[in-house]
């Protein structure tokens, strides 16, 4: 079924204008939200550790430095996910058909820039970059809340996506911190 045909189906979901009447566009927004919408919360949470005195300053510093890498790694997973969806047809035609909103995709792919040391030295940039996805999330949530207030299923689904994103970032951060801890210990032992 082509998008045009799908758009003719009259469902409450597709009557919402914010997704250009495209169900696929909505699904792709959800994909982006899974990979990026949880980052602002994590960033602010880690940032607030500064005010907690009993938190080890070294831990604070290490974990703060890992934040942009976490964000960049989520970008890698996002690209891997999209490549998996495109497989085995990587033709331009297929890519253009699948990607409904190229700008969102490009913005998501830009998260890979935070692998570059010069850029990831400034964690605030990653926060600012991720605010776009937070805005996207708030916009979707607001739309569903105002236009479909009789059914909470969409909000529940959006919040589930948001929760998965938060858990994804917490997991990545934990793994990164654990790995960096091991590397640090290994290097210290070697230096002794």
């Amino acid at each position, binding site marked *: 079924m082509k998008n045009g045909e799908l758009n003719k189906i009259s469902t409450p979901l597709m009557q919402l204008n914010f997704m250009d009447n495209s169900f696929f566009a909505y699904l792709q927004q959800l994909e982006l939200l899974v990979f990026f919408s949880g980052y*602002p919360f994590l960033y602010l949470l880690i*940032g*607030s550790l*500064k*005010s907690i005195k009993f938190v080890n300053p070294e831990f604070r510093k290490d974990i703060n430095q890992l934040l942009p890498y976490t964000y960049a790694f989520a970008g890698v997973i996002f690209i891997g996910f999209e490549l998996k969806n495109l497989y085995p047809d990587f033709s331009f035609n297929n890519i253009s058909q699948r990607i409904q909103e190229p700008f969102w995709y490009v913005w998501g792919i830009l998260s890979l820039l935070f692998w570059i040391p010069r850029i990831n030295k400034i964690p605030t940039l990653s926060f600012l970059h991720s605010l776009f996805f937070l805005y996207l999330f708030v916009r979707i949530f607001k739309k569903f809340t105002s236009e479909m207030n009789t059914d909470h299923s969409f909000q529940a689904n959006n*919040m589930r996506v948001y929760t998965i994103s938060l858990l994804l970032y917490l997991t990545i951060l934990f793994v990164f911190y654990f790995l960096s801890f091991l590397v640090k210990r290994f290097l210290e032992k070697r230096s002794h």
Partner: protein
Amino acid sequence: MKLLKNHSLLLVLILFSGYGYIASCTHESLSPLPSAASNTPVITRGNAVLVPGSMIVGDSTQWKLDKAHCNVMWSTNYVGAAGLLTGRFNQFGMHDVTDAKMLNYVTAAQPLLDTSWAFNESDPTKTYFSGYVQINQSNTGEPGRDGGCNITTLGTVPIVAGTQNLTVTNIAKIRTTDVKFDPLSNDYIVTINLSWKGTLAAPLTKSIVGRLKYIPKTKVQFGTSAAYSVFGLQLKFQLNCRDFGITSTNVSDKIDIECNMNFNNK
């Protein structure tokens, strides 16, 4: 200042997330689970008491067998293996035909009043019925068969025009010995004695279990004529024709019988 901003933003995000989780609550976990589907059959029985009395026309308390709108049908597998052979009995009634009444009646109408029955919807011990069919009145729609091989096969005699043959060679009778509720439906389980000579030397009586369905009483009215009530009784049972000496391989051992009796109180 920066710290304050950081905290403020975090607070805003926490509040928004909290609102999101609350607003998205579908209360699914709070809703009581729907009750499990019941395996218990829904059985509703009224308390109709229906009796024929003397079948006096115009007495709405007396129920009359509407023979013109009744039938007694039989069916069996052709040669015991293929599709159904079916037929109906043109002449039948609901009368307890005792030995003394087993005669030839020169009449085109019902030879005996159809009064040997009573139905009590809520008390099956008060329900009973007797009935009969004239074997040579079996009608399969094939005259050659009905007046030919059927006669010899079933051990009876040909039809004599204008005569109702209720003699022992031509009558099969049923009489209830027990009627009880079916625990799984609105129906009743009936035990009947089936008496039929078939090709045997003397009539044989077999006890058979069948199912009786009551089609509830309903008032009907057509045009300007007076309203009246109708109800139905449907009896189904099965017999083994070999018990009665029927040896024809054209028919299966098992013969299914279905009696659809309609009554009115006109």
